[in-house]
């Protein structure tokens, strides 16, 4: 098929993929060789024209997650790119952040991703802090991350409803930190489903 410019490109379908990369691309006269790698902790599948064989994957037909993990992970990938870009700007750019701050922000983002929290919007507050932002109706949650503390601020258009400060060491127990912030934001108890599995996106038993 490749002789006429139509290439049989295997595609993997995975509802449970934890991360997906689409990487190398080499163009020739009438075909493109693309390699896709679909990766999850339980599987990594390489798909390339050199091995034009379909690779599986698991698809759950009888239940659908509210948001697929693949979507969530892609959103966090974009967040990671934004953080990287913010460290490479000129230091007189108002969006520039100190690399150590970016490192802590990535760590927070990584824990949020592991916990399955929706990817936040991101902006900086000077070079010394990164702010993650979620909106719920008119309310906003701002999670300000610096190299020595984490601060959660919940506000409505009228007022600041609540502010909670945590030392950076609170990140050592993300399974307690983020549900507590979520509980304050949602103004109700949060039910956390824990799992003993080592699969991605499942909250470990602590």
């Amino acid at each position: 098929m490749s002789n006429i410019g139509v290439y049989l490109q295997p595609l993997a379908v995975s509802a449970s993929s934890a991360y997906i990369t689409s990487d190398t691309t080499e163009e020739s006269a009438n075909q493109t060789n693309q390699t896709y790698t679909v990766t999850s902790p339980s599987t990594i599948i390489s798909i390339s024209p050199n091995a034009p064989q379909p690779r599986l994957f698991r698809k759950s037909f009888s239940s659908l997650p509210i948001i697929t993990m693949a979507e969530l992970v892609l959103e966090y990938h974009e967040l990671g790119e934004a953080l990287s870009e913010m460290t490479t700007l000129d230091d007189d750019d108002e969006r520039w952040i100190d690399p150590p701050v970016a490192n802590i922000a990535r760590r927070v983002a990584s824990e949020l991703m592991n916990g399955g929290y929706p990817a936040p919007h991101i902006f900086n507050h000077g070079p010394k802090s990164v702010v993650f932002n979620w909106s719920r109706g008119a309310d906003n949650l701002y999670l300000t991350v610096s190299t020595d503390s984490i601060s959660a601020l919940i506000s409505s258009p009228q007022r600041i409803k609540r502010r909670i400060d945590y030392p950076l060491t609170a990140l050592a127990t993300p399974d307690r930190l983020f549900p507590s912030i979520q509980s304050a934001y949602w103004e109700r108890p949060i039910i956390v489903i824990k799992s003993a599995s080592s699969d991605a996106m499942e909250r470990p038993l602590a």
Partner: protein
Amino acid sequence: MTAIQATQWNALTARIAIFPVVPFSDPPSSINLYKAVWGADPDQFFKQPNPLRPSVAQGVIGGVLANCAVLQSRIDFSLGPAPSNSPDDSDLPTIEDTSQVRKELVKIIDSVKSGIITEPVGRVATVVQFIIVASTFSDANRILVAAMPNQYKITLADEEDFIFQVNRAHRVVDNIRMNFLKKWSVERFQIVNVPISIGPGAPPSPTFNVQPVEILAASVTFDNNNMPQLIPIDHENQALLLNRGLSQVAQDQRDFGMNIAGFEP
């Protein structure tokens, strides 16, 4: 009664997962870890575009697809079926040589013990999934029930999407509690081929008219991992936990009558 297509448990995937106590601020390189374990360059390497995306090194070792994926919060050394040139695109690829899987898992554990991961580690996991392809749900259910211990056996007919999981957690090395998860399930797999047209002069792609091939399989997954620790686990104990997980797979598969080559206790 429809004949069961295969009676040999093959490995679909296996992995050794390593979790840092806190997410890596500077994740190790997957290519370096791959080389440290397998002593060769990977066939493919995807560097990490940013720390929230994985870096992946991948190659074929002993007929098995070996991967090292590094994320900020975990490192996965995983094994899967190697690409083949099978003319039948509808085959579900599996690793028939389960002895090789065991051998590669041991190699990874030995590398972990030698200290290839220098960052503080708080959790490790040994995971293996075995499957037998089945033609119907009844067949898959029958295969699964046959591989369950007597105390869990239930009566199944043609029910779909059966899942049964238990965890016999207990304390093991250095008073660390380990999960010993066993999951019996019927999995559905879908294989899709998508024709695409690329390049100057290429005819337009045909209408998207994919006929996915669906395959049923009876699956038994072992996921043996320790509870997350805030105090780092030293290399020796990481290897002890991983080996404990691997030996439990061997013990369990024997107890379940799965007779998997290479996984004899």
